[in-house]
């Protein structure tokens, strides 16, 4: 019993951490730069399919299947998803917020249709199966297998988190936030905003691709229906609940929202009769929507929110503040306009 619980716990956390990776990617695009990407599912799908094609053995009737190591698959998934984000960004990044949203949504639909119809590459509606799983030799012992996978994912999330924190708190991250706050002002300060927006879009896309690859190998099977707009909605809910602009918030939001999702799924299975369960499953989405509304009303910056002083180089320096050389006479020099 305890073994089953533990192995479910490992499964739950591994899945949540995969969402956390997608969420970290969206945080680079939206949280930091203000890029409104509603095609998240498409970029996750690209990573999943590329990694699956690279690592599965050759199969009759299907192009590709290169039988490469899993690490190469993950890397390839991230690189190709980043590259495609870059190309899509090169075409669309000049669009303002809502128009960029429409373009990315369109891209995700195109990607979904390609997965469905490019049968000889993607396996069509049935997808790709027998994707090699990490630590497959432990597959007979569910507990070890679950915890090894969890450890692997936790390691990936930790590495990613540390790298993104370094970037978020660097001068690069500062320029992204400046662009998010006021692009015209950033441009007037010499920042080539197109270049920075494109970089943020590509980095975010690559991270989403990595998450897609990780998920494909964790489940061992992928199909186009895994990458519907529902996935995009879930990831957005996670980032907003956790705290847009905060990497810790992104990870926390992924875990919290995934918990709401998994618990409500279990409750629906227990409460509703078998015949009604397919319809009752929609309640999960309703619940996430309600949670999102509640957060937006009561805690609009999310559970954690963006920190006040972001630059890492400033943290240690605030203490050594020198006295101002120009004395300030009045508490408020300008009281007219506030």
């Amino acid at each position: 019993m305890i073994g089953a619980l533990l192995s479910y716990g490992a499964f739950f956390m591994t899945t949540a951490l995969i969402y956390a990776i997608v969420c970290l990617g969206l945080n680079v695009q939206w949280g930091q730069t203000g890029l409104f990407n509603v095609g998240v599912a498409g970029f996750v799908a690209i990573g999943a399919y590329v990694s699956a094609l690279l690592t599965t053995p050759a199969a009759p009737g299907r192009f590709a299947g290169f039988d490469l190591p899993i690490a190469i698959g993950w890397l390839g998934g991230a690189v190709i998803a980043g590259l495609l984000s870059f190309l899509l960004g090169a075409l669309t990044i000049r669009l303002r917020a809502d128009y960029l949203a429409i373009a990315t949504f369109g891209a995700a639909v195109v990607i979904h249709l390609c997965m469905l119809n490019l049968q000889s590459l993607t396996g069509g509606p049935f997808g790709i199966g027998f994707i090699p799983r990490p630590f497959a030799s432990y597959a007979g012992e569910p507990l070890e297998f679950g915890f090894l996978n969890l450890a692997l994912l936790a390691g990936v999330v930790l590495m990613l988190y540390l790298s993104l924190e370094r970037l978020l708190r660097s001068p690069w991250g500062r320029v992204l936030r400046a662009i998010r706050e006021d692009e015209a002002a950033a441009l007037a300060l010499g920042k080539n905003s197109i270049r920075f927006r494109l970089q943020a879009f590509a980095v975010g896309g690559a991270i989403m691709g990595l998450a897609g690859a990780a998920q494909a190998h964790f489940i061992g099977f992928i199909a186009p229906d895994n990458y519907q707009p529902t996935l995009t909605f879930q990831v957005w809910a996670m980032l907003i609940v956790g705290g847009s602009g905060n990497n810790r918030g992104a990870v926390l939001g992924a875990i919290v929202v995934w918990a709401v999702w998994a618990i409500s799924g279990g409750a629906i299975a227990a409460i509703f009769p078998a015949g009604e369960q397919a319809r009752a499953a929609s309640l999960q989405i309703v619940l996430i929507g309600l949670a999102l509304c509640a957060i937006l009303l009561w805690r609009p910056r999310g559970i954690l929110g963006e920190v006040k002083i972001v630059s890492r180089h400033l943290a240690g320096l605030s203490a050594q503040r020198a006295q101002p050389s120009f004395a300030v006479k009045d508490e408020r020099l300008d009281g007219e306009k506030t």
Partner: protein
Amino acid sequence: MSEQAQAASKTGEAPLIEARGLVREFGGLRAVDGVSIALEHGEMVGLIGPNGAGKTTLFNLLAGSLRPSSGRIRICGVDVSTAGPDSRLRLGVGRTFQIPRPFAAMTVLENVLTGRQNQTGERIAMNFLQPGRVAAEERRAVDKARALLDFVTLSRLENEPARVLSGGQRKLLELARILMADPQAILLDEPAAGVNPALLELIIDRLRMLNGDGKTILLIEHNMDMVGRLCGRVVAMASGRLLAEGAPAAVAANPDVVAAYLGEAA
């Protein structure tokens, strides 16, 4: 600043900013209608004119926020007619906005730091490959940003988000932010509008200090008293054209200029 611009500024021949025959049309309206203007190194010039004269449009053309419909703009002899604001700042021309545009969610200090040019840490890979160099540059940038915040008397607010600043403080923040980029010339769009008298004196004093340090300044301003105290030369605009140019008192007394201001009411 590019080598090309440096070479040009050393010879001292080309004006810092030179515009010839600038035209900008918005639909049927010619907001700027054939303006030629030159700004020499080290000058402080006032640009005056009634509302709707085309002053801010001219500014946007000079700063690169708008493309001219026709005409040419040179910075230190380099043609920048179609270049964006970021490349003009690299050549040494920066601007502030009539309505300040602070990065609201960022602290006052971070706002100023953003003005720094050519930061190694603005390249993704360098934050991992040369973290020491990035940190050292950042320390120098912080020192400079703090000196500038002292200069504009915002030091006490350095860790506050810029959204808490008052209108006048935002104008000072904009000034510090663009100074962080070390421009040779600054285009200031109404730095004293809506500012109380005490702060106005501070702004006048700081602009005089900057000009004394060799900064070239072009100033849009309605406050003729301020223009008279600061600027050696004034350019008056109305209906998109240049009306008069010369010493402040002479321009203020020019019948065409008086008519342009009163013409609105008459």
